[in-house]
């Protein structure tokens, strides 16, 4: 459904060896692709179309009533509901801040790691660990051991420094979740940036050094430019995942005020107790439209990456 922006230029690469493709040959090529393609269409597009249909009805499960087609009524009054508008803003902040925080920290960590030093492998292992942990565990552990108002480690540090303890999760629910998300996603960004750093052509760097460029200059002129596509990729992938955060909200705040994003809001309004399937579906369609908007931009970036790779 969002393939519109994919480049449709001439197929390059191995095809050039066989310019004439017979029909049967092209179907033989397609065959290995079909099972995966059909499964993905069934698993993603069918429910999506059903969601669109639900969103055009006034379907309530509890109390049960007749399901009637009501056109775009669900969409018309959507932004009058301040709970929904709040959820939209939470979603924006819960996506943008963690992505930016993680990309900055991840780049810094990657630069620190991209050199030979004692115990480099151990340091990398320690740094990637948060990415491997279960998100539910991450949320629960941060809430109960780091953020806890009475015996959380952070409050212990704050008290040692002479401050007074803070009830992080209840007073700053969004900030708490953002901190946890940054912690979880920094390793991912670090890995992508590390791959970027290590794929820099060594000869160019050598030449710059021989020419007497200073390290700061090399970093700004060569490294940062080289890292840009990697940074874009990290931001793109991070955004796709973080726009859908659910687990951390579920276990840390249970969707209290200030920390309910649209995905969690849809859940609350439907199978999480609201049972208004029609209205909830219209909210989820809004998330999809927003995601498509981001994806359109993002896919353009990605296709640029793929093209750049072929030219190089």
């Amino acid at each position: 459904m969002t393939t519109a922006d994919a480049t449709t230029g001439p197929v390059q690469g191995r095809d050039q060896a066989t310019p004439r493709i017979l029909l049967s040959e092209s179907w033989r090529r397609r065959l290995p692709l079909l099972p995966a393609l059909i499964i993905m269409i069934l698993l993603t597009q069918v429910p999506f179309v059903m969601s669109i249909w639900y969103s055009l009805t006034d379907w309530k499960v509890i109390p049960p009533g007749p399901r009637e087609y009501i056109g775009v009524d669900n969409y018309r009054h959507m932004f009058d509901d301040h709970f929904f508008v709040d959820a939209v803003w939470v979603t924006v902040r819960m996506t943008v801040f963690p992505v930016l925080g993680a990309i900055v920290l991840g780049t810094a960590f990657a630069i620190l790691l991209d050199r030979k030093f004692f115990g480099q492998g151990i340091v990398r292992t320690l740094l990637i660990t948060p990415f491997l942990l279960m998100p539910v565990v991450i949320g629960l552990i941060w809430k109960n051991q780091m953020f806890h108002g009475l015996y959380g480690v952070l409050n212990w540090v704050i008290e040692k420094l002479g401050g007074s303890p803070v009830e992080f999760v209840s007073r700053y629910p969004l900030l708490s979740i953002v901190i946890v998300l940054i912690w979880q996603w920094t390793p991912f960004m670090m890995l992508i940036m590390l791959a970027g750093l290590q794929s820099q052509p060594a000869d160019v760097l050598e030449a710059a050094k021989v020419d007497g460029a200073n390290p700061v200059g090399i970093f700004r002129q060569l490294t940062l430019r080289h890292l840009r596509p990697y940074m874009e990729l990290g931001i793109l992938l991070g955004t796709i995942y973080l726009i859908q955060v659910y687990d951390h909200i579920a276990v840390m705040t249970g969707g209290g005020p200030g920390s309910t994003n649209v995905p969690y809001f849809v859940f609350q309004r439907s199978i999480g107790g609201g049972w208004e399937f029609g209205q909830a579906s219209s909210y989820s369609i809004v998330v999809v439209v927003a995601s498509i908007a981001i994806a359109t931009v993002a896919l353009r970036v990605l296709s640029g990456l793929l093209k750049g790779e072929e030219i190089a």
Partner: protein
Amino acid sequence: MSGHEAQPRVVGENPWANRALGALAWLVALLFFFPVFWMVLNSFKEEQDANTAPKLFFTPTLDRYREVTESAGGLLSFGEAFTNSAVIVLTSTAIVMLLAIPAAYALAIRPVGKWRDVLFFFISTKFLPVVASILPVWILARNFDMLNSRQVLIILYLGVNLPLAIWMLRSFFQEIPSELIEAAEIDGASLRGQLTSIILPMAAPGIAATALLCVIFAWNEFFYAVQLNPVEGSTVPIWVTTNISTRGDFLAKLSAASVLACIPVVLAGWLAQKRMIRGLAMGAIK
């Protein structure tokens, strides 16, 4: 990857600056790792040692591990949850690989026309938020009588991991020299012949890294599991949440459960980290 295989290089020439930066890296890593270290430490404590001002020294005990692995009547037990997770994750990942390997072949080695559009279709499904499909999925699962079954999660995790697997495998397959495949074709090798004689052996490390990543994502998945399998057929993430209680202290117990829940995937990730780094980052770029 192409010629210049990554070698960490020394940017600055000053050895002292390098040593200082190395020490800084260690400091940052230890701070960053602290929540994990503290979780492991807490898991060996008595509840009263865990729920107090941070305590570094205490008499370690395995009692919390014993508590969380004992089956309590009626509740989801450790054994059930781990069995469910193992069956669901392994079955789903196996099917993903069976579907993704031929698909990646059709995108990388003998590309179909407009392969780029097809690839973007797969990726674009990741842009579709799961909430947008959860209601129809829930209703379909209920109508097919599949709520609280292992099958429903096996099927849904196909949708979660297939795009990622195809995306990564394609990049690994592209690194196979095309002369090898052409030679096999001239010898008359079929698709299956090419796969088993050349592609699978040559791309084996990449395939393993891809499968591992699918396992990690499926093992850690919570949203579908809690919506569709809250009672039976539940997986490890749900079992972890059963170890929090509204009454009394539970941090040590929760820590022990968390360690058990995370250990399979963390160990696998540690062992395969280099290849995963390559698969995730380089794989995504190429």
